[in-house]
């Protein structure tokens, strides 16, 4: 029996009797990161990184949460477990399992670039590597964050000069926080949608330092709404909620914006291909660094990516999961985003 089995509840470790990022309720769940498709409701107990806990508590409510830091080995039923930075969002972890000399790494979602908030991606050697491939096609090649930030800043300044508000759509957990230092350089006041605010406060209350934001409420002063700089989840796109910032320009922050067709579909004024996932080169580099004998590819362009790996000296298999991708509109069904308006 391999150390990890692919079941209809998710990745199951029989030796340790626990699941990793299960999509149905189980008794013990290890969680790579706080996004709603990876950390789902209903399990009896959760184990996650210390910084992921406040997110889970906000999203899933009170429950049984255990935490552990990066590179602090623990053991469950004889399986050695450690978490390693995945650099995807705050607290995101690759989970390393070791049992009788067999090593598996479940990467969850990851990226290679250090965004200044989510840590430095750590390559971990293993026999079996489970990798996402959300952007597993060679058309996805990211520009450095600094360059995209500069594009965003210029866009904000241009809108300001034209008397317009800048409304940025970004995933409320991860992308929204990542944007803050960038925006803080061009505005004194960052306004955020309630969904973004909830995540923000959960992180701040847990001691994570972030630039200041202001929640948009019916009491927000009128003069703040003109020429404002605002972060909102994509679920707010096209809703009456947006109107208060008029005249405004909209910008979408997502890796999908690298392709013009996807950008036009969003009907936004600007698209910034800023992603919390590894691009094509990043995926290949990360996989190579693991020196894994077998690579399991999950959510994304699994068929094409898996085939490419197999043709290039890796042993890759496709695994069907129920993870979504946290860079598209579909994700606006996130519970967090539903909390507000």
């Amino acid at each position, binding site marked *: 029996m391999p150390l990890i089995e692919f079941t209809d509840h998710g990745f199951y470790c029989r030796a340790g009797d626990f699941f990793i990022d299960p999509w149905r309720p189980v008794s013990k769940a290890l969680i790579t990161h706080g996004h709603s498709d990876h950390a789902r409701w209903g399990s009896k107990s959760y184990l996650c990184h210390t910084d992921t806990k406040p997110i889970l508590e906000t999203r899933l409510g009170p429950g049984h949460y255990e935490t552990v830091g990066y590179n602090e080995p623990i053991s469950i039923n004889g399986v050695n477990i450690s978490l390693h930075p995945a650099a995807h969002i705050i607290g995101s972890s690759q989970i390393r399992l070791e049992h009788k000399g067999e090593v598996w790494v479940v990467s969850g979602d990851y990226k290679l670039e250090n965004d200044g908030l989510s840590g430095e991606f750590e390559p971990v050697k293993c026999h079996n590597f489970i990798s996402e491939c959300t952007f597993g*096609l*060679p*058309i*996805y*090649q990211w520009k450095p964050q600094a360059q995209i930030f500069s594009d965003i800043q210029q866009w904000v300044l241009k809108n300001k000069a034209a008397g317009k508000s800048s409304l940025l759509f970004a995933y409320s957990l991860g992308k929204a926080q990542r944007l803050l230092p960038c925006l803080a350089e061009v505005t004194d006041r960052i306004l955020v949608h309630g969904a973004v605010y909830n995540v923000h406060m959960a992180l701040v209350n847990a001691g994570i330092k972030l630039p200041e934001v202001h929640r948009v409420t019916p009491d927000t002063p009128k003069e703040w709404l003109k020429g404002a700089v605002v972060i909102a989840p994509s679920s707010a796109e096209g809703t009456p909620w947006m109107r208060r910032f008029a005249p405004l320009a909209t910008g979408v922050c997502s890796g*999908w914006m*690298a*392709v*013009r*067709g*996807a*950008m*036009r*579909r969003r*009907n*936004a*004024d*600007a*698209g910034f291909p800023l992603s919390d996932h590894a691009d094509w080169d990043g995926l290949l580099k990360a996989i190579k660094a693991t020196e894994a004998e077998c690579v399991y590819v999950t959510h994304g*362009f699994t068929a*094409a990516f898996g*085939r*490419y790996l197999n*043709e290039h000296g890796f042993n890759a298999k496709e695994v069907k999961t129920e993870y979504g991708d946290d860079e598209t*509109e*579909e994700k606006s069904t996130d519970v967090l985003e539903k909390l507000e308006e």
Partner: protein
Amino acid sequence: MRHFAALVAKLGTTTKTNEKLDALVQYFSVADDRDKVWVIAIFSGRRPRRAVNTTQLATYCVELAKLPFWMFDECWHTVGDLAETIALLLPENETAYNERRDDERPLYYYIEQLKRIEKEEEPVRKKFIVESWAELNRSERFVFNKLITGSFRIGVSQKAMVNALAKATSAEASVIAHRISGNWDPGTITFDELTGDEAHATDLSKPYPFYLAYALEDEPASLGNPEDWQVEWKWDGIRGLIIKRQGELFVWSRGEELMTEKFPEYHSLQYLLPDGIALDGEIISLPPAEAGATTFRRPLPFSSLQTRIGRKNVTKKQLQEAPAGFIVYDLLEYEGEDWRSRPLSERRSKLEALMAQWNYTALELSPVVRFEDWEELKTLREQSREMNAEGFMIKKRSSIYQVGRKRGDWWKWKIDPLTIDAVMIYAQKGAGRRSGLYTDYTFAVWDGDKLVPFTKAYSGLTDKEFAQVDAFVKRNSLEKFGPVRTVKPELVFELAFEGIAASNRHKSGVALRFPRMLRWRKDKTVTEINTLEDLKRMLEVYGK
């Protein structure tokens, strides 16, 4: 190339007409004159001939990007556009690019080179393409590739470009529209010749831009007194313009294509028509006139004319089976004088007089529909399908002939489309705006206990609905055939279409005209959809 790439990027991202206009005006005020001529040419569909074919482009690209061909296909499929796929796949060299930035080459350089290499051997062409890719950045590469592969779909209407040019050169929009339509060679004409004052008297073929109508959404009673309006059938062919000047005949179609050669039926008009004349009308299949007959000839259905379109050489058989005629709507030029600013009533009575005098078999005057009140017109409209018409055109008698689509004076009042309920059975990813999503569907109806595919459709749903169907497709795929997925026959749609014809190229035996999704029938299950019998009955009634 930088200015042009920036223009294309701007036009591609903004959805607002006035921002597009601003971007164009801005471009026309900074760009090189030679580049401007090319931009006008490219955006009005006159791109240079294809110097390199798509397979060669793809081959060079996979070589440079070190990728297998199947991966290129996969990417192309996701992106939906070849030029963009290549631009995204090629390795980017920012530093080298920034160093070269100061002596960048203009747009016309690349176009001239593309024309030059057209006649060269393959290695020469390859060398030019590869070197150009190396000196351009990603967004410039995209427009460079577009120059080769053609069709800049950046949502700039002819109207927007005309307005921008009018603004940049402070000329009348209608004058500009007239000037840039027609036959000119962007390789030789200068910007001044194209848009300046003295130009154009020389081009005999220059068409007038069509006046297009909006659909009437309210009841016709909202138009007021019926006596102020002239009503004609809305004929279902190709809008066309016949011009004769200085002994030469020109036949233009919408989309500004010169189609003179395609319709030998019109050739006698070169000798028959007087000089200095322009007739607006419909290119359509008309049965031959019987000797001495004076009644209006009912046109054949559009499917008949379709056999004539897109073919360079017309066969004798086609000429017999689908003879083309021209239903004349309007008189735009007479004795070399532009009549567009005269009222319709005046143009019409002149036209009637001329037509009575001419009596040429290629031409047929569009009859005016007589009616007492709007209620009566409504009843008359029900005869549209019998007439092989799409409904009515309602034109104000006092209207001048305007440029492009305008509200107020001309309206089209179309009959409701034919509809049928069908189930989606195949899905394919769309291109362009919806690339990456499953938006192209094939539909089936029941034939006994089997589902038989009969049409494709890919428009009519909202973005949100497309996203939902896309999610359904991904979850309910049964099989994959290349880019096509077979899906569980579960989603029912009401399809609308404008016409139906017999077809032996389709398994179902029918072909639909302009099929589209009218609504998603979430209230219906696959057992409740229509049958092939139903389609055949429609063919009986409307397909003749």
